[in-house]
């Protein structure tokens, strides 16, 4: 009897973030019943889509005891490069006035490749040269901001947002596909596919298991035959490739890019991971948790705007949720001791 009670309590603790999400949604609905509509939930999912991709990437890095502060700037660089190559030919202020209109896939692959190399550099600094991850990625962050600003802020139009993005991309990021009676935004579908791929990668492949192993105990992983250096470098590179994908989607969603695009996304991503149960010291975390973590923040953003709570309060609510999540997490482990 006592045992089942404690296991219910334990289950509650394990799934606490789902409860938090549910409570938030119910609270918003109680205050503003109009919130309960398919459009709103679609909007929330669509707004979460790129963030989920980013948070999963950042989460992978956290999982292997890393930390990536260059997330936002990497997205910024990928955004300005891809945006500059994706302007419609009729737009008056093109960065490359004579460039033919490219299929979306070309700039996408290009920025994925560029980011892969940059991510690999971060990974090598961390795994091979043993630079602490915060320092390595902080340095990367600064370099990337410089590079994207140089690329972005130049003649003839100077530091103007790169607009006039081709409708081939914006349509994909704004429009929906009709499945049965409901319209589902493409963005949600893309994010869902990436989530599924990530889930398989984390749970069903050697790479994923090794990620958990390295995060759990790098020395034990080494002794167990895991090529720690290789996996770490791959994680940073893969994360960077995902940032590139997210950046292109972000360009399509917003319809423009500048050197400030992506600024501060690393903190949003890390916060979502932490709320989603990823351990800052690595080795613990799940794809589902991260997705929920992101959704919690979007619901706060969107829901509180919907009921007209001003922005400052939203910051306070977010801060409280982060601390609350970590306290619950600590309790989970303290209990076992």
């Amino acid at each position, binding site marked *: 009897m006592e045992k089942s009670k404690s296991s219910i309590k334990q289950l509650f603790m394990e799934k606490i973030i789902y409860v938090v999400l549910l409570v938030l949604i119910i609270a918003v609905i109680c205050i503003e019943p109009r919130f309960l509509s398919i459009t709103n939930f679609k909007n929330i999912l669509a707004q979460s889509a790129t963030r989920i991709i980013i948070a999963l990437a950042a989460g992978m890095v956290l999982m292997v005891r890393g930390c990536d502060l260059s997330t936002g700037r990497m997205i910024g660089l990928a955004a300005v490069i891809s945006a500059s190559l994706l302007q419609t030919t009729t737009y008056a202020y093109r960065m490359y006035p004579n460039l033919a209109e490219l299929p979306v896939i070309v700039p996408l692959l290009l920025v994925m490749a560029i980011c892969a190399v940059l991510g690999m550099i971060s990974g090598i600094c961390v795994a091979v040269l043993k630079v602490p991850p915060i320092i390595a990625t902080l340095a990367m962050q600064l370099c990337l901001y410089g590079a994207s600003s140089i690329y972005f802020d130049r003649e*003839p*139009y*100077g*530091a*103007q*947002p790169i607009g*006039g993005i081709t409708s081939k991309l914006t349509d994909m990021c704004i429009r929906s596909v009709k499945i049965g009676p409901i319209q589902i935004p493409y963005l949600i579908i893309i994010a869902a596919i990436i989530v599924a791929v990530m889930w398989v990668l984390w749970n069903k492949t050697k790479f994923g298991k090794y990620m958990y192993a390295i995060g759990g105990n790098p020395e034990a992983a080494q002794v167990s035959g895991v090529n720690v250096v290789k996996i770490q470098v791959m994680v940073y590179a893969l994360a960077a490739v995902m940032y590139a994908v997210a950046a292109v989607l972000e360009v399509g969603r917003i319809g423009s890019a*500048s050197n400030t695009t992506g600024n501060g996304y690393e903190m949003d991503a890390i916060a979502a991971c932490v709320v989603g149960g990823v351990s800052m010291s690595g080795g613990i975390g799940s794809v589902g948790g991260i997705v929920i973590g992101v959704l919690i923040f979007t619901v706060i953003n969107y829901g509180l705007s*919907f009921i007209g709570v001003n922005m400052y309060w939203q910051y306070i609510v977010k801060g409280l949720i982060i601390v609350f999540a970590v306290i619950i997490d600590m309790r989970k482990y303290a209990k076992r001791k």
Partner: protein
Amino acid sequence: MNKKLTSSMLCAALAVGTVFGSAMTASAADLPILGAGIYSSTDNFNSYIGKAITGASEGVFEVNVDDGQLDQSTQLNQIDTALAKGAVAIAVSVVDTTSAPTIIQKCQDAGDIPVIFFNKEITDKDVVNSYENLYQVTSTGGDYGAAIEGEIIVNYWNENPEMDKNGDGKLQLINLMGDPGHTASQPRSEHVKSTIEDAGIEIELLEEDTGMWDTTKAKEKMDAWVSKYGDEIECVVCANDAMALGALTSIEAAGFNTEGKESEQYIPVVGIDALPEALEKIESGELIGSVLQDAQTQGKVIVAIANNLYQGKEPLDGLDFEFDTDGSKAVRVPYSAITAENVDEAAATYAE
């Protein structure tokens, strides 16, 4: 082995140094130095003035516009460096207006070097009058273009009766404000509303919140509001174009405005800054208008004042401008309304 590595690294460092060095000192060496700084390259208009200063300085000053990166201490370091290099004048858009006395002190200590504050106005008259060699260049009035923005809406209301969708004689308005820490934020929000009300149009404010000048944030706020109010919204007024473009993306995703003014459902959106991208949208009718802050002219005036003072002339010698009579020692460069009729005018300022 080690020696080889060291020497090759040294070579590389030298090479990099040479490249950067030559890039930085590209302009002719004997021109006087103008120390110029913007508060952040993330502010479009601010950095645009920076560009204009660079352009106007050609053949007059050697100039390198520093980016204050939203950090006052960074900016103060940059000013120290400029003064140490022997700048004959300082033109700066301060990160934090309250630190103006520190900058003045630095200029005074460096030998009464003139200082020109631009974009963000120093409103404390005691500070302004504490230093003779202090001048300011800003846009007209304390409304930061918002009165003009209000006028665009008033004109639109008068010319398009269908703007009052529900026919109640009131304007159902959504107001996206800028970063509250920015001087222009509050005045813009106030003046646009007061201009509309002064014209006899009653406002029903549906939502009012800050979008932090940011496209993404504005879009996400608008997602929620469009879902909540839909076609009840009669106007969206944004404190800058970046937010106007974000709001427009959201509105268009919900099926409004896609065909310009011919759209079945239309929500009028207005911004400020007349960014190139906004001009396109104004031309196509997706936005009803924006306000041009004349960066080119401001840059020219700043450089001209600096040059006059350097040559010992009156500050406004040879210029068509007067100082404002309010004791702010400020030159006011006027804003202008940009709508579908005069897009070309704004586009001209971006032409080479």
